[in-house]
């Protein structure tokens, strides 16, 4: 408009201020919008799955009715090798298809290794033959 303004590119200050203000306000709005309770709820559900899997393996009777599956499987290395499939089946069948499970016992491991960095639920069951650790994750 005036001759003085032609040599210098000058931004209209109110608009600049308004842009900064809008960015600040929208940033706050974005904080509210994206703070969904996703990760905490997911982790809690995985912990429940791990607890339940540990309890089921430790307490529920074996298919032939002869007492808790885990105790029988940990009685000896041969028993573990024989029960490995049943352990894996039972651990997997309790969980939805998308959930992976790994059971680590003093006599061996069942299930795929846990990928690092993936949120996982963990539970430990104490048995006469040592602790048994269960890990579950969405995979």
């Amino acid at each position, binding site marked *: 408009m*005036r*001759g*003085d*303004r032609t040599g210098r590119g*000058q931004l*209209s*200050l*109110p*608009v600049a*201020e*308004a*842009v900064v*203000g*809008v960015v600040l*306000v*929208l940033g*706050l*709005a974005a904080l*509210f*919008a994206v*703070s969904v*309770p996703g990760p905490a*709820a997911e982790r*809690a*559900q995985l912990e*429940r*799955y791990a607890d*339940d*899997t540990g*309890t*089921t393996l430790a*307490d*529920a*009777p074996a*298919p*032939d*009715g*002869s*007492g808790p599956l885990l105790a029988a499987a940990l009685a000896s290395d041969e028993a573990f090798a024989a029960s490995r499939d049943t352990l894996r089946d*039972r651990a997997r*069948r*309790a*969980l*939805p298809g998308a959930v992976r499970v790994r059971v680590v016992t003093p006599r061996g491991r069942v299930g795929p290794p846990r990928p690092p960095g993936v949120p996982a639920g963990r539970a430990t069951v104490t048995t006469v033959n040592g602790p048994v650790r269960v890990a579950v994750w969405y995979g």
Partner: protein
Amino acid sequence: MTGSRGQSNLLSVAVAVVLLVASTGLAVAVADDALARADREPLARHAAAATADRLVAAGSPVARRANTLRGPRTANLTAADVDALAPPARDRALVVRLDGRTLVERGQPTGPTVRRSVRVARPTRVVETYGANATRIVVPPGVDRVRVRVRPGPNATARTLRADGRVVLHDPGGLDGTATVRLSARDRTVLRPPAANATVRVAYDRRPTEAATLEVRAGAR
């Protein structure tokens, strides 16, 4: 005149104010919506989690042991049962499902779903009759009591019934009738028929367990 000073004009100020007010209004709307959503969910999630916890716990009326549910009793679960068991769920919309089948439904719950993996035990009665030439009767492991009916044969008197060598039924006058015998559930038991011609009928419950998923979803009060 005003060349070297940055100075506003009315149009710029008006545009700036409009932009700021609009974005503030949008932010307030988003925040209000987020707060309204967030307010309900923790309570509904807690109610669902508490209900699921108490249903699968060892002392629950529908559970034989922790995470093992009684099939028939669970099928008859009512909303009143759940309310009595889990006060956080009282007066809330509630849905309880086992393996996809709805057990309890009250209202339309909108909260998150809590899932527990359980096993469901369904009792089946096994009745087996062993006739004259049976030499042994095998009761599988996991059975802690057996109902035994003995009918003596024509010329022999059955006096004693042994289980794993231990005497469990004895009548000097001869066994004839029904009795309940307690056994060790840890291993299988072998019963020896009391006499060659006696007919023995054994009846017991087996409770095979099946994997299932219990889902609980609660809503607002």
